C-alpha cells in the first residue's frame, strides 16, 4: 500500500503526460499548461524540506557550540536577512536585494570559480603526462584550445583560431554527440524503468 500507491500515481501521471504529447490539439496544449502549473505549485513545497535540512544542520552546530559554530551563525544570519530583504522590499533592479546579489554573491561566485583555474592548472601539471599517444593528443588539443582563444595564439599563427574552431565544431562535437546519444538512450531507458516501476530507488528513505 505505502509503495503501491506512489507507483500507480507515477505510472498514471507519466502515461497521461506521454499521451498528451502526441495529441496536437488545443485542449491538449491547455492541459499541458495546467499540468506544468500544477508541477511548479507542488514543487514549491519541497523547498521547505531543503531549508529544514540546512537549518537543522546549522542550528544544531550553533546550539551545541560545535567547532566552527560561528560560521554556521553567519550562514543563518545571511539566509534569513537576504530572504527577508528580498521578500519585504522586492527584487527589482535597483533594490537592496539586487545590490547584495551584485556585490556579495556575484563576486564571490566568480572568484570561487576562478580559483578552480589554479587548482586545475596545478592538478593537470601533475596528472597530464604524455605517457601514450592518446594522452598526448589530449594534451596537444588542450594547449591548442587555450592558445587559439587568446591573442598570442593568433600572433603565433593567424589560422590557429580557425583551426581551433574547426576542432570544436567537428571532431569534438562528433565525440560529444556520440556520448550524448548514449546518455539520451540511457536516460530514456531509465525513465521507462521508473514509469513501469522497475526502478524504485526514488521510493526509498521513508519506511516501508
Amino acid at each position, binding site marked *: 500500500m505505502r509503495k503501491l500507491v506512489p507507483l500507480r500515481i507515477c505510472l498514471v501521471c507519466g502515461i497521461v503526460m506521454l499521451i498528451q504529447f502526441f495529441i496536437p490539439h488545443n485542449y491538449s496544449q491547455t492541459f499541458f499548461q495546467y499540468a506544468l502549473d500544477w508541477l511548479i505549485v507542488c514543487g514549491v513545497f519541497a*523547498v521547505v524540506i531543503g531549508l529544514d535540512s540546512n537549518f537543522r544542520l546549522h542550528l544544531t552546530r550553533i546550539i551545541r557550540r560545535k567547532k566552527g559554530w560561528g560560521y554556521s551563525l553567519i550562514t543563518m544570519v545571511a539566509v534569513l536577512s537576504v530572504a527577508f530583504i528580498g521578500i519585504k522590499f522586492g527584487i527589482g533592479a535597483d533594490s537592496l536585494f539586487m545590490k547584495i546579489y551584485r556585490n556579495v554573491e556575484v563576486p564571490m561566485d566568480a572568484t570561487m570559480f576562478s580559483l578552480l583555474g589554479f587548482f586545475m592548472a596545478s592538478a593537470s601539471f601533475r596528472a597530464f603526462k604524455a605517457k601514450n599517444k592518446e594522452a598526448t593528443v589530449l594534451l596537444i588539443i588542450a594547449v591548442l584550445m587555450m592558445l587559439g582563444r587568446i591573442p598570442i595564439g593568433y600572433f603565433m599563427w593567424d589560422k590557429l583560431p580557425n583551426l581551433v574552431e574547426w576542432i570544436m565544431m567537428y571532431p569534438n562535437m562528433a565525440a560529444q554527440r556520440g556520448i550524448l546519444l548514449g546518455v539520451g538512450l540511457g536516460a530514456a531507458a531509465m525513465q521507462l524503468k521508473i514509469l513501469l516501476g522497475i526502478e524504485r530507488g526514488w521510493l526509498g528513505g521513508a519506511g516501508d
Partner: protein
Amino acid sequence: MSHDIWVWVAAFLTLSILSFLYKDNPFYKFAEYLLIGVALGYGIAVTWHSTIIPKIVIPLKEGHQYHLIIPMCIGLLFWARLFPKYAWLSRWPIAFQIGAGVGIGLPLILQADVFKQIQGTILTSAILNNPFNAFSAIVAFVGVVSTLIYFYFSLEHKGVVGGIAKIGIWYIMIAFGAIFGYTVMARMSLLIGRFQFLLHDWLGLMR
C-alpha cells in the same frame, strides 16, 4: 580608489576567497559560509517572487483558480517527511513530480538527444557538394559512429570493432582535451574579470 561601500564589500570578499590560495583561513571560511547563506536567501526570495506570488497567490486571489488547491495539497504532503511516522506520505508528491516529469521528459529526451543528433550526423548530398564541408561532415560522421562503438560493450573490442573503437578513443581524447582547454580558459577569464575589478573598480589603478 573607489568611494562606493559596495565596491569595498565586493573587494574584501574577493580577496577573502583568493586568500585560499595561501591556505585555508578564517577569512576564506567567513566568505564561504556567507556565500552559502546569501545564495540560499537569494533562492528563497526569488522563489517567493517568481513562483509563490505569480503562480499561487495571484491566481488564487485574483484569478479564482481554485484548482490550484489540489497541487498545493499534494505539495503539502512533502512536509510529511518532517514527521517520521507519516514520512511515507511524502512519496505521493514525489511520485506525482517524477511521473509527470518522466512523461514530459521522455519524448523530449528522445527528440533532442537521439533523433536530432542522428539527423545532424547523417551525410546528405547538400553537404557533400562542397569538398571542405564534405570532409568536415565525414570527420564528424566517423567520430560519432566510432565513439558509439567504443561505448558498445556487448561486442568484444577485437578485429574491425576493436579498430573502430580505437578511432573512437582518439575522438574522445580530442573532446576531453577541448573540454579541458575550454574550461581552463573560462576560469581564466573569470580570474581576469576579478583582477580587473580589483585594479580598476576598486583601486583605480587601471584605465
